[in-house]
């Protein structure tokens, strides 16, 4: 029994060293998937509990995508549970709905017009949060969690090709929302460089 306790301590230590450095990453994804901070915190905690339980079967090599995949499962399970009640969910939203949305293409947009830096983080967060779930997940995993396509595919459980098309669509939707929100703010503010002011 003493040996067991030592072994267990060793296991816990290995888990801490491997997993805890990714707490912020896990929490970040949780914030984007779950919307409220309370839910995000609960999901992150549940993620680490599950990870600890399955740590023995963890076969690596990358801890980050493994944790994020667990987190995603936790969130989806929670959405599924809520949808059995009558709480509306958006993770369950069918991708086909979003697939019907036109791919945003605006070839006439010149680089100078894209004054994205003017958007503050709060606005960007809001725009990301408004994306349909599969696209939101893809863009957050790529841009914010900084995963490779291969890792995103593993986390989301879809082929790399799907990751690529989701990312393209996510960025297209984001850009159009981005431009739209910029236009509204610009209208009330001073003229941009691109226009000839009267």
């Amino acid at each position: 029994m003493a040996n067991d306790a030592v072994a267990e301590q060793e296991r816990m230590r290995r888990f801490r060293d491997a997993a805890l450095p990714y707490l912020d990453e896990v929490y970040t994804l949780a914030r984007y998937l779950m919307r409220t901070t309370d839910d995000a915190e609960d999901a992150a905690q549940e993620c680490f509990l599950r990870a600890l339980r399955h740590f023995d079967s963890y076969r690596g090599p990358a801890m980050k995508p493994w944790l994020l995949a667990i987190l995603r499962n936790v969130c989806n399970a929670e959405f599924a549970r809520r949808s059995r009640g009558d709480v509306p969910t958006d993770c369950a939203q069918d991708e086909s709905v979003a697939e019907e949305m036109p791919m945003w293409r605006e070839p006439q947009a010149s680089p100078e017009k894209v004054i994205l830096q003017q958007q503050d983080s709060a606005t960007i967060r809001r725009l990301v949060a408004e994306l349909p779930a599969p696209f939101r997940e893809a863009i957050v995993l790529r841009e914010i969690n900084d995963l490779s396509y291969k890792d995103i595919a593993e986390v989301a459980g879809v082929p790399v090709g799907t990751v690529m098309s989701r990312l393209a669509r996510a960025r297209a939707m984001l850009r159009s929302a981005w431009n739209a929100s910029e236009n509204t703010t610009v209208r009330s503010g001073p003229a941009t460089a691109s226009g000839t002011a009267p």
Partner: protein
Amino acid sequence: MKCDELEVLLHALIDGELDAGHAHDVEMHVAGCSACAAQLASYRAMHGVMGGGALKETAPAHLRSRIEALVAAPAPRVVSMRGFFKPTRRSFFGGFALGSALSAAVAASLVLTVIRRDEQAVADEVVSAHIRSLQPGHLMDVATSDQHTVKPWFNGRVDVAPPVIDLTAESFTLLGGRLDYIDGEPVAAIVYQRRKHMINLFVAQHLGARHARTVAESIQGYNVRHWSQDGLDFWVVSDLAGDELDEFVQKIASAVPRSSSAS
């Protein structure tokens, strides 16, 4: 290259996911296409803003300390784990947690979990690895029937020199090799085929096969064989019939000493 086809590749370029050849193709196209150049510029700007870390969240301190407590080194006695849980924490994620009482119970079971790398755990994992390997594109990292190509491929990837044995004459075709992970450790997987049946041979130094004699079992419909030989543990998984798999095992086992001395 048409602009439509390029759309997805633009993103792959931004994300650094294109090989040099494709990156060059895309850049060539963009250089001569103002529409795609504009797209690329705007997406790149967006990528720059989003990827800068400004959108990263930091876990709140109370969450961090809660999770740290969950994974703190447990005291030898289970009862002391209770102190780690905040009894006021609201109940969590239905079905799983019913509040702190159950959390404590979960923690207690964690304390009692013993680190084991026993045969059963490894057996389950090699079967999972076998099933995973059958997914498209997962079977092989190095695809060749030449044992002299497969064997050196493992150099530096695993810390053993796995014997790679050509059994084509015995109608077990060597397909190639793969790096796999069992229990988080890199393991050499050598892939054979008989008729339509794939055979994965996993080789590593410590893989829970403690017996020199071959142990046979069946897991999820797959036949599994494992044995220990010359300081290496061998696991074989396949949907091949048991007697044929035994034949395979016997061929491998009898060829291993020759193969090792040859290396």
